[in-house]
């Protein structure tokens, strides 16, 4: 009895390891081949032959200082766009969600909520082309560039991420007892004070979820930045930079794989730090959305 159970868990372990090897194999290829010269990669892409640390530094150096890739600049732009969008989404999203859930018996709040929910089925493809022309016109009208600029793209993420953010946050805020707010009001707390001092701190777990869901999407998004910033514009996010870079260095795998390594590294580091939160956040988002 005991030995069959042991045998079973051994089989499971072997199966699991095999699948893990398959899943991680492409990552191994990226990391390992970033240490090689182009000729060594083409000659043998799987084994260690030709691996050297000096070559890695050389590859990374030529990628980082490449004018099409411009890693630090793209990395900085992506970081700024993601963080500013997330902060604004969380702040404005929870403010709006609070107002909606505290007025959910009133028609106007229900209508706003329903419009948000209904808008979640709108695919980006149907709004992307008019979006670009609208942003171009608005930018010309008010004299602030909305295309090829960080502020324009942050504004767009605020609009596109808003619906999901409000939906998840509203569900959470509805579960917070109203008595808390009434007690605060009796003690002479203003409505805005009630929100910032009492409700907002209670939202921490759900804000983590919302931040992870939006953050993964915004950081990896390609279509929206590529349309709004352009392939060869001045401002580039990391995915746009990778695309522009690969487009200009077809089959130069030493450079492409080094660029890929640089592009995936930040996300993997973030994952290693907060893998529990990221995995549970992604599941929560799927189950609620």
């Amino acid at each position, binding site marked *: 009895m005991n030995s069959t159970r042991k045998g079973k868990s051994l089989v499971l*372990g072997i199966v699991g390891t095999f699948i893990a090897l398959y899943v991680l194999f492409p990552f191994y290829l990226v990391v390992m081949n970033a240490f090689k010269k182009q000729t060594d990669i083409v000659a043998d892409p799987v084994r260690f032959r030709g691996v050297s640390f000096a070559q890695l530094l050389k590859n990374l150096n030529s990628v980082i200082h490449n004018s099409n890739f411009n890693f630090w600049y793209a990395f900085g732009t992506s970081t700024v766009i993601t963080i500013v969008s997330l902060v604004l989404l969380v702040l404005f999203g929870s403010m709006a969600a609070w107002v909606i859930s505290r007025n959910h018996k009133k028609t106007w709040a229900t209508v706003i909520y329903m419009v948000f929910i209904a808008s979640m089925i709108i695919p980006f493809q149907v709004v992307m082309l008019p979006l670009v022309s609208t942003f171009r016109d608005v930018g010309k009208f008010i004299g602030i560039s909305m295309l090829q600029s960080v502020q324009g793209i942050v504004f767009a993420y605020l609009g596109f991420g808003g619906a999901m953010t409000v939906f998840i946050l509203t569900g959470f805020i509805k579960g917070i007892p109203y008595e808390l707010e009434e007690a605060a009001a009796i003690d002479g707390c203003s409505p805005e004070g009630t929100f910032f001092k009492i409700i907002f701190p209670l939202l921490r777990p759900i804000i983590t979820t919302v931040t992870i869901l939006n953050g993964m999407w915004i950081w990896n998004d390609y279509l929206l930045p590529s349309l709004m910033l352009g392939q060869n514009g001045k401002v580039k996010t990391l995915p746009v930079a990778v695309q522009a870079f690969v487009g200009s260095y077809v089959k130069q795998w030493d450079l492409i794989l080094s660029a890929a390594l640089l592009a995936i590294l930040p996300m993997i580091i973030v994952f290693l730090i907060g893998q529990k939160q990221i995995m549970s956040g992604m599941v929560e988002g799927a189950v609620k959305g």
Partner: protein
Amino acid sequence: MKGRDTRLESNFLLILGAVLMFAALFFAFTIKANYSGAMKTIANLRGTLLVCGAILFFFGLYKIPSTAHHRKIVYFIFLFPLLFAFFITVIIPLVLGIGYSFTDWTGIRFTKVVGVQNYLKMFHDPAFIWSVLITFVFVLLNVILINIVGFCLALLCTSKLRGVAFFRAAYFLPNLIGGIVLGYIWQFVFNNVLMSYIKFSMLSSTKTAMLAIIIVYIWQYGGYIMLIYVTGLTQIPGDVLEAASIDGASALQTLFKVKIPMIASTVTICTFLTLTSAFKQFDVNMALTNGAGSVPDFMGAYLSNGTQMLALNIYNTAIAKNNFAVAQAKAVLFFIILAVISLIQVRISNSREVEM
């Protein structure tokens, strides 16, 4: 005394904000190229002026010393930023987009309304029909395969496997990486690594290239679906499984008669999640094959976009072929398909809730 002070302050802010916004709008409407000197500087700053004016105006609103209306004002200020962004980025482009699909829009302007001509054009285009068909095939295969793979991985990760936490994280890892980078990594795998073993690149023929996209997509998405199934499986109460084992149910019987029926709602979630995301598939398609692939004869035409799915077809119609009106019509059709899927999902979820 204090009340009067805040009233003054409030009125001052409201008026200043309104004046700034009005000035900015005045410049925006009357902008001329021949402004010079100070006028030109102010005209170029009209956007900043507008934003500052709006912020001052909101501060003024907030400061209005009225206990009766204060709550309503706060509600308004809280709702405004998000609703404004949502309106400009989603609602206006959606309405415009549906409208543009009936015109000869060039991406910048349109000269006349052409009725349903764009829609007729796209249905007479073999390349587009092909894209729609392979998208449906891709979605169907994908939904089935990803759910099977994800579910099996979830069974594995909820069994008595040592180091389960590591395996879960490892299987989930590909989901963190954007489709563009993934696509290029796999292009390398198919063209250089696998090529040296099977002496042929999967990306070189249309059929195997489609298969390659499916493989990559399962690789990327399987771990995520696994996590959702893991959550579902761990929520099955332990005593139910215990009862099944006491009654002498075999592992297979437990799986099909207890576990799967108990996680029916999770299956619905995963099915629709994979369905909509497979429909919108763009990044991997673009980076891996960019839609290339020859089809010798389809509806009497030779096609070179064998692996181009719907989302990529829409993108290329607009960006590469510069045919914005037809691309917009295709996008509207895309929207309708997804809306129908979502409505079916809502129906199914609701009827299940009633049953329970």
